[in-house]
């Protein structure tokens, strides 16, 4: 599955530093403008894009705070605008408040928002929460044919990966890169990062060399890309290349992203530097508490892993995992909840979660790669509307 990348000439993109300077200049300017003209929805849409970039690429959790402020302003100042409610739904989705996002879309529709923007946002919500899978799959496939741009192809690749169709996922990501028309280092870095995750975390067994290659490509496009640095550092940690991992993490150690300090804690632990490890572990705990306090749903799934491991609080992990599951019943959410339930010694709950997962997701190839497949009592046969999903990629 990893032979293709060697023959792919990676497209040129605007230098990451220049793009970051422009991103910050636009962000600054747009906030100034929206303060003066809170009804300029075009500026608000641009701000949402830029703040999302900030959150995703730079691990800046305060971007989510600013987006929520923007959402409040939009709904106050443009209460009669359907498009304002679509933007509010987009922001609610970013912080994983999917129920609220859905309510905003209903209001947006009542206020006459365009069918196109409603459809795009609903698709994004359905995909994130794992509902209406057949429709989501059909729509993602259709979009990738109608508009085979990087955004649509990466989104389709992510869906394939969640379904367990890894070959298709890889092909979709590679096509996204090969057919890029935008020269945005943000977009290309994102596509490369997704490939890194596919090879490093989704595939069983993982292919760390391929994952490393793609994380490095992501960083060549966007050097400060926090998530890519953290994931790549994790690969190096696993391989015992501690100095390489440290060099990746030191430039971003000021990041608010709790995973940065978590990885540093693991690194210093491996180095035998207990004091530094303890310091970073305490920082990680504080960071998780801070982001969970502000955006519990957005960070719940990431925090589960931490509390199950160095965080040493399986009860909290289970509480967060169930909260996440209630919010978005994806296969990954079931897996996390199952793991947390087992860690808390709640065998019955764990079994029930595995059975529910099998009922809901048994029709997907992904279940075969899941640790739930061996423990679920329910027959792994589809029982719902999902049974009609077609895996044809033509």
């Amino acid at each position: 599955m990893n032979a293709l990348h060697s023959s792919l000439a990676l497209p040129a993109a605007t230098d990451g530093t220049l793009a970051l300077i422009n991103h910050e200049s636009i962000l600054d300017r747009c906030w100034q403008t929206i303060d003066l003209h809170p009804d300029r929805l075009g500026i608000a849409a641009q701000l949402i894009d830029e703040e999302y970039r900030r959150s995703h690429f730079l691990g800046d959790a305060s971007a989510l705070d600013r987006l929520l402020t923007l959402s409040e302003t939009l709904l106050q100042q443009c209460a009669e605008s359907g498009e304002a409610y679509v933007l509010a739904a987009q922001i609610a989705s970013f912080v994983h408040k999917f129920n609220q996002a859905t309510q905003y879309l209903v209001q947006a529709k009542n206020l006459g928002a365009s069918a196109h923007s409603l459809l795009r946002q609903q698709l994004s919500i359905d995909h994130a929460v794992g509902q209406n899978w057949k429709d989501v799959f059909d729509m993602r496939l259709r979009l990738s044919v109608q508009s085979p741009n990087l955004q649509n192809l990466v989104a389709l690749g992510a869906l394939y990966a969640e379904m367990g169709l890894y070959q298709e996922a890889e092909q979709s990501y590679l096509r996204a890169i090969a057919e890029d028309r935008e020269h945005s280092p943000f977009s290309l870095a994102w596509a490369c990062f997704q490939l890194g995750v596919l090879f490093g975390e989704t595939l069983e067994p993982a292919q760390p060399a391929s994952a490393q290659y793609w994380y490095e490509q992501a960083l060549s496009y966007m050097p400060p890309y926090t998530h890519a640095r953290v994931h790549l550092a994790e690969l190096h940690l696993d391989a015992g290349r501690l100095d390489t991992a440290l060099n990746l993490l030191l430039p971003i150690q000021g990041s608010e992203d709790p995973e940065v300090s978590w990885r540093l804690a693991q690194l210093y632990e491996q180095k035998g530097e207990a004091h530094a490890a303890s310091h970073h572990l305490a920082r990680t705990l504080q960071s998780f508490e801070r982001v969970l306090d502000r955006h519990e749903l957005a960070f719940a799934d990431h925090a589960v892993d931490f509390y199950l491991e160095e965080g040493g609080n399986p009860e909290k992990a289970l509480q967060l995992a169930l909260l996440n599951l209630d919010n978005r019943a994806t296969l990954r959410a079931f897996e996390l909840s199952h793991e947390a339930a087992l860690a808390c010694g709640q065998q019955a709950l764990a079994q029930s979660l595995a059975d529910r997962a099998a009922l809901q997701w048994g029709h997907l190839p992904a279940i075969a790669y899941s640790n739930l497949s061996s423990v679920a009592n329910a027959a792994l046969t589809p029982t719902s509307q999902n049974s009609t999903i077609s895996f044809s990629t033509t």
Partner: protein
Amino acid sequence: MSDHIDGPRQTADPVSDLTDLFAFTSPTDPTRTVLIACVLPFAGESALFSNTINYAFVVRRLKQTGLGLQAGFEPLSEEWRFTFQFEVLGPETVTGRAKQTGHCVLPGGATLALTVGEENGVTTSDGRTRVFAGLRSDPFFPGWMPGQMKSVPNYLENDNVLSVVVEFDTASTLAPERGSLYGVIAETTPRHPNPKSTVIPRFDWVGRPEQTNFIMDAVPGGLDVRDLWNQETPFALNAERLPLYRQRLTESLQLWDKKDQNIEWDTAALEAHVRVRLNDFLTIDVAKPMSDKSHLEIEKSTLEGRPYTTGGGRTVNANVIDILVTWLINRDRGAFLQGGASQATQPGSTTFPYVRPGNKNMLSVTRSAELKATAQEVWQVIGGFGSLWHPLVAQLTLTGEGPGQLRRIETIDGKIMIERLSELDEAQKMYRYALVSGIPANPYSGALSVQATATGSSVTWSVSYRPEGQGDLIVRLIISSLLNTGMAALKKRFGAAT
């Protein structure tokens, strides 16, 4: 918005998004031609060009192929191309951040090195060509919301863009003795296209203003064809897609024509108009005079079956939106449709580089008061632009009505301020205004609004400004005093909600 964000793809890397193109004879030297293109809508003060994008002007000689119902322009093959390319930033120096450098490849292949932001630009040794690149105040000023044809103030007020400017000696560069009519476009293309890629190597291009946003995208429910259009090769659209574009233009121009309930464009005239618009470039005749009023005159005269009399083109201060919508809606047979914007944040200058420096970040002062009275009760007192409620105001007189209305304020210590109403929204209980004179700040805009709350109402008064002629401390003191005194007076009058 001229060509700003004209298609979903433009948001991916906005530094490739062309926002405007200008082409005109220099107002101070009629022997020279000026081309200006802008990119990166909403650019901030630190914005820079991409190192992997070509920013190019392309000029082709045109042949007028007919008049009236046969109107048309045929681009000839001879081409002049000015291509700007930029580099990554070098290391920072002790004196500050590194500057971005680049160069312009001139027709014939010579290059002219430049530094981004150098106000005077750089000139070739023979003086023939001068170029500039850097941050500028966005010269575009739209005053209509196209969907509803609602007149609005310039909604790009205070915005910035990155501009590239070329000024050249017309006679020695374009050889106009062989024909003085030209088509001009600007385009952004990959500097290092992947030779194996089947992707069309173009990010964006622009000819006439609003070809994409106001016209191609004006058919409700229609497929968004702007991304497709932006990848076309200028002067040579793909023949297979021509029917698609022709149909879209026809539908759109029909919709525009109907906006005043009168049909000015019959089927044959519409067909000619579509044919002219399918050839999308700024049309200039360098042998004829150009002015702020001459934009589209060549196309309009040609379509009306008469010889054109001006050089057409597009000057920096041309009111292109009002010229365009008037032509589309009433074909210049009715009143000129003046929108809510009559000039850019900083109107263009008559000297190189013609577009003004970028707008600095605005400073702001905001004050709020929670009041016991209802929003309606408070709005009745302060909601009129001419309401005399502020204790520092001794006298107030109004001139005119609606947006644009002026108020002359005489303060109790004898100072005079003049402010212009920008927008009044009774339903939202809000008005915005701009300072004309009286406080050392420019620009200066304010907004006053009242909102209902659980305990009564909340008043918010905010002012955004840039100090001019005085330090910020003094200006901020003046504005803060004004707002503080106003809020204190409202609390005293209506009672402060706790």
